C-alpha cells in the first residue's frame, strides 16, 4: 500500500559528513557493485564502452565550490542517495503500490515485480534519488543495502550499507536516527546536521554534516613575524643581471 505509515519503529538512515568526504567515489562503486549483483534487477549501463556512456546509479557524488565573503574558495564533495524521507512524496504517488515505506525500519523500497515503470515517483522526488533502469525498465533506488544490514551470513562488521563499509575517510555513518541516543543521532546533534530542502516538507531521515569552518588568511603562524624576511633584491650574478637588464 502506498499510504505512508504514521509511525516507523526505527528510522534507519545515513549521516554524511561533508567535512571529511574526499570525493573518491568509492561509495558509488561499492554501491553499484553490491546492488547490481544482489537485490532486484541489476543496475545496467548503456553504451558503457562507447562514445556516450550512461547507466543507473543509486548513489552519486557531486562537487560544489563555496566562495565565502573573504578568503579562498572551498571545494565540498557531496554524495547523494535516497534520504528515506518520513513524508516520502515518491511513495504516495505510486499507482501500483510498488513503492512503500517499511514500518519496522522506515526504509523506502520498490517492489520491482509491481513496478510499471511510469516514472512518476522519480518526478515526485525533489532529490533525484530514483533512477529508471533502462534495461529492466523498473525504478531503482537505494535500499540501504537491506540485503546486507540484516544478513546473518555476513560477518558482523559487514552488516551495514556497502557505501558506509567502503568509505575510506569515515565520511558515511549508518544507524537509527529515530533513537536520540544512537551514535548517529549524537553525531547529528553535536555537529549541527541538516536536512536537504527542508521547506518541501519531505522530512528526510538522512542527515548531512556541514563542512567545518576553515582557517582564515590572517590567522597564519604566530611565529611568522620572527622569520627571516625573504631577500627582495637579488644578489650576486642575478643581481648583476637584474641591474644590467634595467640599464638596457
Amino acid at each position, binding site marked *: 500500500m502506498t499510504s505512508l505509515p504514521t509511525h516507523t519503529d526505527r528510522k534507519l538512515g545515513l549521516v554524511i559528513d561533508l567535512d571529511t568526504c574526499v570525493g573518491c567515489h568509492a561509495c558509488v562503486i561499492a554501491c553499484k557493485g553490491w546492488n547490481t549483483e544482489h537485490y532486484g534487477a541489476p543496475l545496467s549501463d548503456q553504451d558503457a564502452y562507447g562514445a556516450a556512456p550512461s547507466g543507473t546509479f543509486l548513489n552519486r557524488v557531486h562537487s560544489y565550490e563555496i566562495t565565502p565573503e573573504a578568503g579562498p574558495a572551498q571545494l565540498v564533495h557531496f554524495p547523494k542517495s535516497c534520504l528515506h524521507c518520513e513524508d516520502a512524496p515518491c511513495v504516495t504517488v505510486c499507482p501500483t503500490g510498488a513503492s512503500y515505506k517499511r514500518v519496522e525500519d522506515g526504509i523506502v523500497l520498490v517492489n520491482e515485480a509491481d513496478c510499471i515503470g511510469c516514472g512518476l515517483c522519480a518526478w*515526485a522526488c525533489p532529490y533525484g534519488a530514483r533512477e529508471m533502469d533502462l534495461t529492466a525498465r523498473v525504478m531503482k533506488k537505494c535500499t540501504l543495502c537491506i540485503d546486507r544490514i540484516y544478513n546473518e551470513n555476513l560477518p558482523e562488521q559487514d552488516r551495514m550499507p556497502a557505501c558506509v563499509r567502503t568509505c575510506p575517510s569515515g565520511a558515511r555513518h549508518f544507524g537509527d536516527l529515530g533513537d536520540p541516543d544512537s551514535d548517529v543521532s549524537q553525531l547529528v546533534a553535536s555537529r549541527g546536521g541538516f536536512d536537504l530542502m527542508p521547506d518541501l516538507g519531505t522530512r528526510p531521515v538522512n542527515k548531512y554534516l556541514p563542512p567545518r569552518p576553515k582557517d582564515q588568511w590572517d590567522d597564519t603562524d604566530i611565529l611568522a613575524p620572527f622569520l627571516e624576511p625573504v631577500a627582495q633584491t637579488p644578489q650576486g650574478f642575478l643581481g648583476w643581471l637584474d641591474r644590467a637588464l634595467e640599464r638596457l
Partner: protein
Amino acid sequence: MHPAPSVILFTTLSGLGFGLMIFLGLGFPPVTGWVAFWFFAFAFGLSVGGLLASTFHLGHPERALKAFSQWRTSWLSREAIAAVAALVVMGIYAVGAVFMGTRITALGWISAALSLATVITTAMIYAQLKSVPRWNQIATPLHLVSVSLAGGALLAGQISAAQVLLLVAGVIQIGHWWVGDTRFAEAGQSIASATGLGRPGHVRAFEAPHTGTNYLLREMVHVVGRKHARRLRRIAFVSGYALPLCLILIPGAAHGLGGLAVVSHVVGIAVSRWLFFAQAEHVVGLYYGARG
C-alpha cells in the same frame, strides 16, 4: 521536464475526447442513431487513443492493471479508475443512444461527471508535484479542465458555449504562464537550500557526478527549445484559442469553418502542452547547477 511525445499526445487527445464526452453526456447535442454513432466514435477514438498513447511511456505496460489499486493516495491510480469508469458508463449510454434511440439521462449525467473527474485527476498528477513548482499551482487543474471543456464544446458543435469557454480557457492559459514564470523563484529552492551549503558563502556546482548524461538529466533537466518559448507561446495562443474563437464568431459559421477551428485548436493545444513540459523545471536541476 522531458516533453515525451506519448504524454503530450495523451493529454491533448484524451483531454479533447473526455471534453466531448462531458457535452454528449449532458445531452448537448441531444443526438441518437447514426449521428450519435459518429459523435461517440469520435469521443471514444480520442480518449481511448490518448490512453493507449500514454501506455507507450510505461516500462511495463503489461502490469498496467496493478495501477487501479492505489486510489487512496495516488492521483495516477485515481485517473486510471476514473477513465475506465467514464468509458464504461459512457459506453452503456452510447449503446442506448445509438442502437435504441433512447438517451438515459441519469446515465449521461454520471458519465459526464466521470469524464470531468478524469480530466481533473490527470491535472492533479502534475499539480501535486512540489518538485516542479511551475505545475504546483491552482491554475494547472483550471487550465487543463478549461481547455478540455472548450475543446469538447467545439467538437460537440456547441458554438455559444465554445465562444465563452475558449475565452475563459485563453485567459486561464495566460494566467498559468504568468504565474508559472515566477513559481520556481517563489518556491524558494536554490542550490544553497538543495545542498545546505549556503551558509559559508556562494555555492556553485563545480563538477558533475558523472562524465556522461543520466536518467535524471534526460527526464527532468530538459532544456532544449526553451529559447523559442516566447514565439511558441504566441503560436499556441493564436492557434489554440484566438483563431478558433474568431472562426466561430463569424455568423452562420458553416461546418467547414468549424472544422478549421477544431484543427487550429488541437494544433495550438499540442504546442501549449509541449511548452507545459519543456518549460517546467524540476528542483533536481539545482544539484546539477541549473539556474546558476
